[in-house]
């Protein structure tokens, strides 16, 4: 239909993050341009694993007080649309959702990771624990950044596979990273999102260039920001319980998920660390890595 070509068509971007390939479609041109600039160095796949759609919730909201609905192959029934100014966050949430609900090739851990000497440090915790900021900081000082949101465990080899999407910095972490990374690596500041202020940061060049390269898990940390400095050993049983909760596809993978998870838990030492400043955390991580990994 002729009238449809301009009216119904989607602006499109294809990007590959680690092993996962995405097609992102948008009703508006600007979000795709922003994403293309930030994901500039990433490979462009021909067949995507997932489609993410940035649609208007209604025809009206496409033009007036514009809103973006988070949509795609996999979606949540009651997802609330975001203001148009937060389209980049909508794309991020859409990509996360596809991975969380659709990815079955690896055991998916909600965790961040960095690598050194072919071995991976994996950090997991609730939102606000500082795992994302910590991985970004370590990525600036001698570690290879592997991902701030998901770590993929290969069920056959047990290797941690990187997922180095754009780093999603929140609130205080934005200023902390602005002191460390060049301004050109940052996306626009989004204020007043459901998660507070958000600014995306392009991962270091080596993180993108080596995103096909896995690493053997060597240390698991449960960081917690805002508490007096403390290190506590985490027993395998507790580790297992916390990691099954941190995995979005553990149950869906059935026996393969159980085998991958138990192998992972048995093979890495685990510590819970509390800290009050990022300098303190980096120092603590280096010390534990030297001793345990």
């Amino acid at each position, binding site marked *: 239909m002729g009238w449809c070509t301009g009216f119904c068509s989607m602006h499109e971007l294809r990007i590959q993050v680690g092993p996962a390939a995405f097609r992102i479609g948008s009703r508006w041109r600007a979000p795709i341009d922003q994403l293309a600039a930030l994901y500039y160095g990433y490979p462009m796949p021909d*067949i995507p694993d997932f*489609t993410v*759609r940035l*649609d208007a919730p209604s025809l009206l909201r496409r033009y007036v007080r514009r809103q973006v609905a988070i949509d795609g*192959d996999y979606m949540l029934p009651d997802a609330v649309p975001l203001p148009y100014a937060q389209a980049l966050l909508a794309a991020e949430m859409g990509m996360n959702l596809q991975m969380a609900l659709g*990815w*079955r090739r690896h055991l998916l851990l909600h965790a961040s990771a960095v690598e050194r000497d072919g071995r991976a440090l994996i950090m997991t915790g609730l939102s606000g624990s500082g795992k994302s900021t910590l991985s970004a900081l370590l990525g600036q000082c001698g570690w290879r950044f592997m991902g701030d949101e998901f770590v993929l465990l290969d069920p056959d080899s047990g290797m941690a596979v990187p997922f180095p999407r754009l780093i999603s910095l929140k609130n205080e972490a934005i200023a902390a990273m602005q002191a460390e990374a060049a301004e050109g690596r940052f996306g626009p500041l989004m204020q007043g999102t459901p998660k507070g202020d958000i600014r995306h940061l392009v991962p270091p060049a080596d993180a993108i260039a080596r995103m096909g390269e896995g690493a053997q898990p060597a240390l698991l940390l449960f960081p917690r920001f805002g508490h007096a400095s403390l290190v506590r050993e985490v027993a395998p049983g507790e580790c297992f319980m916390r990691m099954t909760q941190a995995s979005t596809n553990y*149950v869906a*993978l*059935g026996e393969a998920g159980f085998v991958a998870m138990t192998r992972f838990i048995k093979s890495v030492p685990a510590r819970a660390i509390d800290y009050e400043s990022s300098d303190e955390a980096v120092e603590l991580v280096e010390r534990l890595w030297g001793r345990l990994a």
Partner: protein
Amino acid sequence: MTRDAMLLVDALRNPATTRTLDAAGWTALIAMARAEQLIGTLAHRLSDEVVPERVAAILADARINADYQHRSALWEAECAARALADYPGKVVLMKGTAYVAAGLSAGEGRHIGDLDIMVARDDLAQVEALLIEKGGWEWVKEDPYDDAYYRDHMHELPPLIHKDRDRMIDVHHTILPLTARPTPNAGGMLDLSKPLPFRGGVGGGGCRSDAVRPNKPHPNPSPKGEGLFVLSLHDRIIHCAAHLIADGDLAGGLRNLWDMHCLLGEQDDWVALKARAEHHQLWPAVHCAARLAHRLYGTDIPQSWRQDALSDALFIRRLTARDGWGHQTRKVTRLAFYIRSHWLRMPPLILARHLWTKWRKQRR
């Protein structure tokens, strides 16, 4: 870009049609299959085809996911059977869970969401009470109008959701809303239903939620129920056709039509099927669904069943209203079928009252 979901229909009917697909074609096919909840079925159909490497990985994911859904669906059925162990009547599994439990081809790779069961209408109160008290299910909707509407006019109880496992169960007592014009013989369906050869397919052990809290004993560790049932071969087909043609707006219709295609392939007594459909006042729906399955999926049906009705083209237009992004298309056609679904479901007076109540609620 592909015009509509005929791409998906072709791939399901004849997997060899995918051999000429380029990257854009595969991209559209996968998005459509996911949107129609047919990706697991497609993965099953394409299991012998040589496909691009990334497509193979996507289809492998879909198979893992279908296995997971089947495992969970059978486990839900098992939990329902345990909760209903003291209920003396028949508990009949329906739709996806039934196809998988009975090992039918319609179950291969099929997406399964809620658990659907059917019991005798007179026993609804007893079954509902057992599911809530012994099984741990609870009401989803608090709305008194919706609740009363379900109980007065529908073919099922208001949906119940399990408080730990977050899974829904629909308890049916017949296969069409009570307000619909055809009145199937629900009692006759229960009478002819067949016991399943096995129960749930899952061994002992607690519900997943119990596994997380090991000190809570299972409320019903030694089930003594008579087991679960499935509808007879012809009643399964008639239910599928009723669900597709005589109820609802054909959303997700390609999947239901694939069920129809598979179910029809497992029977060969067309005379008896027609007689049974007439007995349930559902011959027009069965005939229409069989014609559409023949037209789209190449289902083998008798020559005398094949003459097209004028409306078939409209049904096909509605069923394939999907683009390569996974968006629904053809708004006007879809709206027409939406209105039709309400028209079929309710006599004019009830419909007017229903729409009035819903409209007022929206404005509040």
